[in-house]
């Protein structure tokens, strides 16, 4: 069978990334231009600044990727683009570039949902096997998605308010860790002991999550300790928060695996790098006997590679878009 080369473009938040992937599983070349140092000064991603930097970067990243792969647009079979969800002004830059390339080089345009990208990051490591549960955890998402075949997504549940990664960053700010504080909080948690009492959120029968209450509980706790003149033990607070945040995810994963008779669980998104979550997921996989797949860190953050990988399976299932494709800030995965 002829090989298929997909060019994937991702610009949904603060990373401009382009990648070429062969047959949905072999990474040929990837370039990521991150704006993390720019937004650090503002304590979080500023949408207008992100859009401005995507415009500056887009053709540079495209050029570097093609030259790294030693390819031209003639070698590309189709162009995959993140159309949403994400920051609308950021998404638009990748979208307009993708549509323009598809037009002038007469290539199919494949719309890829950002979450589908995170899920298919796993197919760069190992072929997906079904029935599968995708645990998508990042700064923008916390979702449980059941898959019984390629490109068939059934969302079981998701966060009702903040994403887990967002909650990590906000709690990190309470204890004065520099943005993005999530990973730093994870490190502190490994030093500390869970001595502070925090409530496990949304202990119900749904597959949903809620993190805003937990965030408020941490803020109140810090405030109360200060009022009492007690010094806050940052390591212990980090450990206490992490224990509860991870537990609330694990509880729902466990329920979904049992209810849906899941054989494979994949973890995707930036928070997949979280040490506490990894440990507990591994424990759960031994307890329930499912295969666990957590992609290497480089595929967990936003990148064009996962978009190209998902794009391959979308393309094979006949999903292409016309030039009227628009970016959307929020959209259900289907």
């Amino acid at each position, binding site marked *: 069978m002829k090989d298929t080369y997909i060019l994937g473009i991702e610009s949904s938040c603060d990373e401009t990334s382009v990648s070429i992937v062969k047959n949905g599983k072999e990474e040929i070349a990837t370039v990521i231009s991150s704006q993390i140092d720019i937004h650090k000064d503002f304590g979080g991603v*500023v949408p207008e600044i992100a859009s401005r930097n995507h*415009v500056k970067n887009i053709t540079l990243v495209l*050029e570097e990727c093609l030259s790294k792969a030693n390819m031209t647009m003639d070698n590309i079979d189709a162009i995959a683009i993140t159309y949403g969800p994400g920051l609308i002004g950021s998404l638009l830059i990748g979208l307009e570039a993708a549509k323009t390339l598809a037009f002038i080089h007469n290539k199919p345009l494949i719309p890829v949902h950002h979450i589908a990208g995170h899920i298919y990051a796993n197919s760069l490591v190992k072929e997906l096997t079904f029935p599968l549960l995708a645990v998508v955890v990042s700064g923008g998402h916390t979702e449980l998605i059941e898959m019984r075949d390629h490109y068939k997504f059934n969302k079981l549940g998701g966060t009702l308010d903040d994403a887990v990664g967002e909650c990590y960053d906000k709690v990190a700010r309470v204890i004065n860790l520099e943005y993005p504080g999530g990973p730093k909080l994870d490190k502190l948690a490994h030093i500390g002991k869970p001595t502070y009492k925090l409530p496990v959120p949304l202990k119900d029968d749904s597959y949903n999550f809620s993190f805003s209450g937990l965030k408020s509980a941490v803020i109140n706790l810090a405030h109360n300790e200060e009022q009492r003149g007690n010094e806050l033990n940052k390591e212990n607070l980090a450990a206490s928060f992490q224990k509860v945040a991870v537990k609330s995810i694990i509880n729902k994963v466990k329920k979904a695996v049992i209810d849906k008779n899941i054989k494979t669980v994949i973890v995707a998104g930036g928070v997949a790098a979280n040490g506490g979550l990894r440990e507990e997921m591994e424990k759960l996989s031994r307890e329930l006997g499912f295969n666990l797949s957590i992609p290497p860190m480089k595929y967990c953050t936003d990148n064009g590679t996962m978009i190209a990988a998902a794009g391959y399976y979308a393309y094979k299932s006949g999903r292409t878009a*016309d030039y009227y494709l628009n970016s959307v800030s929020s959209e259900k995965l289907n």
Partner: protein
Amino acid sequence: MRILYIDTSSSFLYTGIVEESNLLCEVKKEYNHELSKYALPEIVEMFESNNIDPKSIDKIIVVNGPGSFTGIRIGITIAKTYAWSLNIPITTITSLEAMMLSSNSNKYYVPLIDARRDYVFGAIYSDKKEQILKPKHIKIEDLKQKLEDIDDYIVITNDDIDLGEKESYDPDILTIVEYFKDKESINPHAVNPDYLKLTEAEESKLND
């Protein structure tokens, strides 16, 4: 020589193709908040209905602002991707120059775009089309003062701005392209919007 013109700096898409002083085709359409969806397919439709191969374009002239931030980015991204990918010359002009050139007046030209909160994006050009005040994000009151020294001028705007005699803007794409067709081209990677204004986040940081 075939030149593609693109301006998406307002709620309108203005695009056209000029060849040897002839306007082959043009599109002028308003899209409220949906420019990102329609800009490229409209351009595609213009090429297809006139049987023009996208690879036959020799140069691109694109408007890099001022105007709607999102709007400018749409046109710039299409234009720079196009020029970079086909390795063709590209140059930028301002929306205010395009407005000045589209007027038939023989007075001083004052093209203006509403920038909200008592500000406009504006410039002043002489009757000989020389730049008197370079494109600026300027308080209306300050602009008024600058206009006091000028006898006879015409404001060109599609916005609700009252600074004397005015006419509305309808781009004369052929004239604009002819005027700038020999303007020096720049590296597509360096083709970027010129917003004339920092983001609010940057401004409040400066004021800290």
